[in-house]
């Protein structure tokens, strides 16, 4: 078929769009406005799609349910982060209970603006800059290692006094790059050289730099992200068995040789937060144990908004990774499940709109970002409930932190940009 030549074309820059218009030209499935079945002609769409190749693209309009869910989660998240953080802010920020709230609000407002802005950016731009983005990620991760360390950990580049966590950016870059690879090599995914090898190279390179930071939880996320992108990109199933086998072996080696270092000390107490036997263990598992106390204290209906007791300096840094433990304590199982349901809906909606995106790259990009969101939520919950080692995975929209919030909102903006090409009814 004709359009396959475009995919294999050396000139990457125009190829996704060319494929799109090429498909039109070839009389293939046309974009169907208003969610109608394919085959319905729509001149307007054709015109729009023909106008598409700019930096900005408003296309068919964004998916409002997705945007609303993002905003709802963001509002709830800020509210809960404020509730969780005000005692610790009062105690540690010289009596300023609103310390974290003020900053998070600022991040949120600018973040939403960035999201809206991003939603107008023609996401195919990322296809063009995929390699550059990956290069930026690598450079950033190397730069981080040159930064002064705080307690042996190097994760931030300081822009003035504002810390910028590079790994947040890297996750996005890796998704973009893997989407680019899978799009470019769409027909050759069954060959190791075009699927597994680039993926492995990206992962190993990124992981090596993250290991130096160290930032183990991000390595885990990277691993899953690359895997998900290869899976969605169409790499044959048999390779996954090999990958999982290899991962297991690698993990065992790391475990037995003690390379895991920092994480090991945390994993020592893994699953033992409530059955600590030594003072050291008690100390190590302090945060996780108090997280469990908070979650358990919430019971079915919770202590009520603002009524957490564990946030009174028992649970360290309740505004960060463990914010959801306070949510559980205040809103109970019912509230926690409601919020998880919102997250699940958001993931579903993200994948739903991405499945209907105009191009393969858009589909891969949207699904990858949505999957990353889900992955972060799940890993965060499993960490705070002591089913995974305490390794620092933030909860999107809830955890305090400028970089992660910005990056998450920007990525939501990317999904929204993808939704502009989705062939579905826009509400």
């Amino acid at each position, binding site marked *: 078929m004709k359009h396959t030549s475009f995919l294999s074309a050396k000139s990457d820059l125009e190829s996704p769009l060319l494929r799109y218009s090429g498909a039109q030209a070839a009389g293939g499935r046309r974009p169907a406005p208003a969610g109608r079945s394919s085959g319905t002609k729509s001149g307007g769409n054709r015109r729009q799609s023909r106008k598409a190749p700019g930096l900005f693209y408003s296309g068919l309009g964004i998916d409002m349910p997705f945007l609303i869910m993002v905003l709802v989660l963001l509002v709830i998240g800020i509210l809960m982060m404020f509730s969780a953080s005000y*005692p610790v802010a009062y105690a540690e920020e010289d009596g300023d209970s609103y310390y974290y709230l003020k900053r998070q609000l600022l991040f949120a407002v600018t973040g939403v603006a960035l999201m809206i802005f991003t939603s107008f950016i023609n996401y195919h731009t990322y296809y063009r800059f995929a390699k550059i983005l990956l290069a930026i990620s690598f450079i950033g991760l190397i730069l981080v290692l040159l930064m002064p360390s705080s307690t042996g950990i190097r994760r931030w580049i300081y822009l003035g006094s504002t810390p910028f966590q590079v790994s947040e950016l890297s996750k996005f870059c890796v998704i973009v790059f893997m989407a680019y690879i899978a799009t470019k090599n769409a027909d050759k995914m069954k060959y190791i050289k075009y699927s597994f090898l680039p993926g492995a190279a990206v992962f190993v390179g990124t992981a090596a730099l993250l290991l130096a930071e160290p930032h183990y939880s991000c390595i885990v996320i990277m691993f899953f992200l690359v895997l998900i992108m290869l899976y969605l990109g169409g790499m044959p199933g048999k390779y996954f068995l090999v990958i999982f086998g290899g991962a297991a072996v690698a993990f065992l080696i790391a475990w037995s040789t003690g390379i895991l270092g920092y994480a090991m000390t945390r994993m020592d107490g893994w699953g033992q937060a409530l059955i600590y036997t030594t003072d050291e263990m008690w100390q190590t598992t302090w945060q996780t144990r108090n997280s469990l106390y908070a979650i358990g*204290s919430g019971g079915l209906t919770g202590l009520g908004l603002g009524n957490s007791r564990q946030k009174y300096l028992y649970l360290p840094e309740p505004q960060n990774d463990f914010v959801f433990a306070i949510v559980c304590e205040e809103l109970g199982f019912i509230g926690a499940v409601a919020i998880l349901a919102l997250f699940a809906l958001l*993931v579903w909606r993200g*994948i739903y709109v991405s499945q209907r995106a105009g191009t393969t790259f858009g589909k891969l990009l949207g699904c990858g970002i949505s999957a990353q969101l889900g992955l972060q939520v*799940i890993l965060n*919950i499993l960490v705070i409930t002591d*089913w995974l080692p305490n390794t620092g995975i933030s909860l999107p929209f809830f955890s305090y932190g400028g970089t992660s919030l910005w990056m998450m909102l920007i990525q939501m903006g990317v999904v929204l940009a993808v939704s502009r090409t989705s062939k579905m009814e826009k509400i």
Partner: protein
Amino acid sequence: MAKGKKQTFKSRSNVLLAIILILGFGAAVCRLGYLQIFQANELQQSAVNQQLTDTTLSAKRGTIYDANKKVLAISASVWRVVLAPVYLEDDTQRRIVADGLSEIVDVDRETIFEKSQQNSYYVEIKRQVESDVREKVLEFMDKLENEHDINSQCIFMIEDYKRYYPYGDLAASVIGFTGSDDQGLWGIEYQYDEALTGTPGRLVTATNAHGTAMPFQYSQNIEAQDGNSLVLTIDETIQQIAEKYMAQAIEEHAVYNRGVCIIMDVNTGAVKCMASVGGFDLNDPFTLPEELEKEIDTIADDTERSQAYNEALGKLWRNKALSDTYYPGSVFKMFTAAMAVEEGLVNEESTFYCDGSYTVTGQTMGCHLRSGHGTQSFRDSIKNSCNPAFMQIGEKVGAKLFWQYYQAFGFSEPTGIDLPGEAGDIFFSEDGTMLPVNLATASFGQNFAVTPIQVATAVCAIANGGYIVQPHVVSHILDEDGNVVSTTSTEVKRQAISSETAALISDILEENAVSGSGKNGYVAGYRVAGKTGTSEKKNDSNGDGIDDYIASFCGFAPAENAEVVCLVFFDTPTGAAYYGSQVAAPVYAQIMSEVLPYLQVATQYTEDELAAMDKTAGTYVGMSLSEAQASAEAEGFTTSVKGDGDVVLAQVPGAGTSIPRGGNVVLYTDESSASSQVEVPDLTGYSIYDVNYLASVYDINISMTGATTSAMSVSTSQSIPAGTLVSPGTVVKITFTAGGVSD
């Protein structure tokens, strides 16, 4: 191919979605559900445990009152000064706090400064600070806040209680004392610790991980319930009287191992006085007398020294009235006599022969009167305190009956008095079997040991018609509002002897106190009864090469319808006198002569006594001299006049003072003569006649106690020491002791 690819993507993205939603979110929800529903209670409990700070609010320990509600032991608020250095920001602030506090609470400033370096919320600086110091600390805290801009939360105070004993060493071994944690360690404080302690309150507050209160309402205050108060049967006045005379006698007779005085209500068993004299200050129970302390300090070995120290303390605290066992000696003869009479083995007509000794199964035991008492009646055997007679009476009773009565009188078991440390008796065998020679010695109270409280309780039975009552020191328990919680009722354990037997023995004992071996214990105007006792201890505690003796006297008054029993007991007098009649009986008389009037026991004078009886001086001041003289003479006094005036300006003795009938009232008629004084002469060592004569010569008045019934009596002590300057007519109390009594 494109179609296949699309299919692949579509299905794979669906699979991914399914995995994320079902596996991922599913797992998260399951895990949360498990924690929040199934494990919720357990986790919540753990969380609450760490969030709640449980502060104990100390309950105020109950007060101990004497029988007249005089305070014997009371708790007062004191304060614990605590530093929370975590609020101090730098060394400058620490310096200011350390310097200021050091001045107020008298703790070294460097010590405080060092303590202030800790990053803590609780560093104790000083305990048991009085409220005036607390005020100063509070002022200092204000100053810190206002002048130095230092968070005054860095200092706080916690209320504690400290025990005070207003009477110091009075009844020390009975009242006992408390430890540093307000727990009773000895005496009533120990025995009634639970009642006195009360229930500490709890202040449960939700606190954050730093230990300060959380901002939301979450505190529960369970008020401390103050301890109950005790009202004792001990009467402070009686205790004071007893301890005063006991201490005097201990000094006079160089008593080595302290003395005991028990005064008990014969009918109820209420102990009105229990003194182990030679005691300690309850406010400072861990300090030994200076000399003893020095002696112990010379011991080089640390272990030995601390052991010696502990032993010395134990000895000091010991309540000899309960913890010491001794051979009751001749005091026991009243029980031997009582059992023989009760069994009909002897009566008033029985006679006993004493040739100075008596032999039982080949062993000869002598009488204190070597020449022997000859043939004597049963009554005289007791009055003579004749050992051979009692060995014969013992023989008639036999070992089996002796043991039965021994048990009936309560000697075979502790009395169960509500005080700690009571010892039991030491008898020849556990089942009462004994050799004839044992029975012989036991008949006059030798070679078996009992406690003073057992003897006093048994004497109560002689005095009250044969009933063994439960001795006790706590009369009732009051709650914090003063309501009576419980009252100790009289508990009659059994009747040991019939009232007829008791009456007969009482009668003989009364006669004994008037004209027998107990006459030194006589108190004029009161029908006292009593028996002396002198017993060998068969060991030598003070190392003077002479076996120790115990001199005791136990009696009661009045002889009929008795009210109180009094036992006086001196352990190892090392002076020249060691007989109970010489050492203990006069003290008994002295004590009873003050206690009986205090208890308002009705006086019953003999005709002789009536003639010599004390009379109360009237009011003569303001009368003309002639009127006053006429009035005083009409009341049976002689008068002497000082001054040249016509109107009486002053009189000695004052109105209402008791002086003997025929005593002299000095009337002052001018100012200058009122200040004239006379010197009290040495009035000891004289007969009653001589003392009366000397008194008139020296222009003082005499009041007599002790063996005033015997012409052989000699004055042995005087209430105002010789050489003291007093106003003419002042009453000096003289104690007489009869000579020629060696028991």
